[in-house]
């Protein structure tokens, strides 16, 4: 195409026609003032009145507050489980495993899982609102992605329950026992579904701990599980912070650990279970490369990059946080990126028009701000959208960094926020080398119109998931997991069953 004669041309997206606020109603969501621990089919008080250490001052007896990050107001308080509570939960899970769940005919197990899936769908709107209130993600995402995908996981694994002999032909499939599952704050309900559904389908029982900043949808799920009449103790959901998680990991009654979260904690878990018989799957951090070749459909590639990094405020382990653009189209891509982020709406997560919601916690916002400062100190050039931020709550503008080197910390370390680094490349070999030059290996994206290039790139990317001409596509049938410091084991699909079975 013809070269731009005039680099001062600019489009104005702050138009006189504005979208009026369109908030989703909060009234659909019933949030109790206090939540107990879900152990053995009942909600029980924590054994200690005095809270053990929770890393901030929000403790109140044996309970801690969970807040709405969009306005910093308290939503509810949840019980803080200590080692004694963990012990109680593991024992309940063991008893349920021995006496009921492992002996139940597989198709009966499936009925329960289907029931959970359907009840989740029935209450989808309530789940979406609570997910958004507790975690800060836009209602558009919790409504259109988190909740439906979570229900789909239950449906999918319910289908496998009585077909395991077909999943692993000529092998005898046995459950593992009691699974200890620790999940992160970025997709609270979806991660709970990823963990619980395959465990139940294969005949295991579960002790699950949601993250301390986002416990509410997991506790709502506990309510559904109770209403679904799942035998007591098959699923136990206990809340707490790091110490509670450590108690689960170290409990001798646990046969398998499933963890999604930071690489640092993943390493601690790995050390803790060394020398034990515990199986583990770890899904840890990422610093994915998103690669645009000059022959790519650029407008769609830019849209994919935007979704890749700004989806869920960038709190996505597989976020495409490192963009590599072939140098011949660099200027065009950068201009298109800048235009597109101007049209992203940052604000009230409950507003149906919000594209980027609130950062999950004050601590995470500080981490992101710190990295933005580091980026500037490293000499990278920063561009942020001009949007106004709400006065209260934790918000961050979508941010681009250019003039970034492989050795820049912002290009090496996981920021877990709406911050994209942009680098250029000249040849295919160069970008393969640069994209793989990271300690992580969870995901990658390739944008090109040439099929042969896609196959070459996807075989050479050292990443668990490689998307071609799209990004952040998830399906229960598709396995997900990492290379290198992004962890090991796969969740989802047929591969996801493997982590929860012993094959004879």
């Amino acid at each position, binding site marked *: *195409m*013809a*070269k*731009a*004669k*005039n680099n001062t*041309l600019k*489009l*104005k*997206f*702050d*138009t*006189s*026609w*504005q*979208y*009026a*606020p*369109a908030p989703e109603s909060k009234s659909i969501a019933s949030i109790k003032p206090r939540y107990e621990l879900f152990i053995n089919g009942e909600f029980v008080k924590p054994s200690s009145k005095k809270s053990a250490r929770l890393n901030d001052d929000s403790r109140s007896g044996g309970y801690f507050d969970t807040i709405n990050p969009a306005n910093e107001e308290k939503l509810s308080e949840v019980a803080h489980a200590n080692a004694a509570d963990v012990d109680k939960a593991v024992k309940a899970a063991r008893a349920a495993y021995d006496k009921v769940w492992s002996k139940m005919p597989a198709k009966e197990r499936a009925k329960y899982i289907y029931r959970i899936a359907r009840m989740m769908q029935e209450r989808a709107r309530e789940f979406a609102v609570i997910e958004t209130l507790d975690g800060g993600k836009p209602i*558009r995402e919790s409504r*259109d992605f988190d909740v439906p995908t979570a229900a789909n996981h239950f449906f999918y694994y319910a289908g496998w329950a009585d077909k395991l002999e077909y999943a692993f032909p000529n092998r005898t499939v046995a459950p593992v026992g009691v699974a200890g599952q620790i999940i992160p704050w970025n997709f609270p309900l979806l991660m709970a579904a990823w963990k619980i559904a395959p465990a139940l389908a294969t005949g295991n029982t579960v002790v699950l701990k949601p993250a301390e900043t986002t416990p509410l949808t997991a506790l709502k799920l506990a309510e559904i599980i109770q209403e679904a009449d799942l035998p007591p103790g098959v699923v136990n959901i206990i809340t707490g912070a790091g110490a509670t998680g450590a108690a689960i990991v170290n409990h001798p009654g646990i046969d398998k650990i499933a963890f999604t979260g930071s690489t640092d904690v993943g390493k601690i878990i790995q050390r803790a279970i060394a020398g034990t018989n515990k199986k583990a799957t770890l899904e840890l951090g990422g610093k994915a490369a998103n690669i645009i070749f000059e*022959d*790519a*459909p*650029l*407008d*769609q*590639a830019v*849209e*994919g990059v935007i979704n890749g990094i700004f989806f869920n405020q960038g709190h996505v382990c597989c976020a495409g946080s490192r963009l590599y653009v072939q140098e011949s189209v660099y200027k065009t891509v950068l*201009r298109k990126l800048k*235009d597109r982020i101007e*049209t992203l709406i940052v604000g009230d997560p409950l507003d*149906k*028009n919000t594209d980027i919601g609130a950062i999950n916690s004050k601590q995470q916002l500080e981490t992101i701000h710190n990295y933005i400062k580091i980026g500037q100190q490293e000499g990278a050039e920063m561009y942020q959208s001009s949007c106004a931020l709400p006065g209260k709550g934790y918000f961050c503008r979508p941010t681009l960094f250019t003039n970034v080197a492989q050795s820049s910390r912002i290009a090496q370390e996981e920021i877990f926020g709406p911050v994209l680094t942009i680098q250029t490349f000249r040849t295919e070999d160069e970008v393969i080398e640069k994209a793989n030059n990271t300690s992580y290996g969870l995901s990658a994206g390739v944008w090109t*119109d040439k099929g042969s290039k896609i196959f070459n790139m996807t075989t050479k990317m050292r990443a668990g998931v490689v998307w071609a*001409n*799209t990004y952040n596509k998830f399906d229960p049938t598709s396995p997900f997991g990492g290379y290198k410091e992004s962890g090991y084991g796969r969740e989802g699909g047929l591969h996801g069953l493997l982590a929860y079975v012993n094959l004879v």
Partner: protein
Amino acid sequence: MIAEKTKMIIPDFRLSPGVDQVGVEERAARVTRRSIKKESKLNGLLLALNMIDLTTLEGKDTDGKVKQLCYKAQHLHDAYPGLPTVAAICVYPSMVKVAKQALGNSGVKVASVATAFPSGQAPRDVKIRDTKYAVANGADEVDMVLSRGKFLMGEYNYVFDEIAAIKEACGDARLKVILETGELGSYDKVRRASDIAMYAGADFIKTSTGKISPAATLPVTLVMLEAIRDFYYATGKMIAMKPAGGISKSKLALHYLVMLKEVLGEAWMNNEWFRFGASSLANDLLMQIVKEKTGLYQSKDYFSID
């Protein structure tokens, strides 16, 4: 104009950017997730109303029919004062004179289809005469059709030259080039045809004649708006957009405005740079506008059907 064109570097249209079908349809679908409520809705409806090219393109059109339509264009719903007029009336060349007289100095423009609409299957000199006839009768805008057969055969120079010749025949009238996207077969081709039309001198690019299904769709419009944006950055020249056919509901019209706002922004948000080619959309907009103001839906019988 010619001086301007000589400064422009004409690209190789075989190298027009490709379009990913899945990606462009996803982006278009995301536009429909925007929630337009309250004053935003009312303002959007009024804006859409003011962007309509009220159209009648029937073999059975008569002077009387066109006069009625011209009256409607200026008096959309007199029960409800303060409404804007539509942007233009769109008719066959033979009706231009009647329409021009009926509209007088109301500010409503007269657009005429030309160049052997809707097929475009006629020799170039016939097309030029068709155009000149419309302009001589007072057409403010000419809606020509792309020679799809030649385009699909890869004869881009022919197509380019034809558009340039019609542009010349238009004189001061603004030229809309109808791509007839329903016959082009892929988004890649829509993008390429858009590029050819813009570089050849189109003032507007327009999706469809309304005689072929599918007519305008959101993804096709998105591809064309993105072509307009790239052209603007490359040349500094603004091109207007007109989706036509198949847009009969207010909600869909608002989706188009959302797309316009997020792809091209403020400068295009008026009827100089964006039009809806539609006939039944106006009444649906009126119904919604009345509902927004009164809180009540009225029956179709309360809105005139000229």
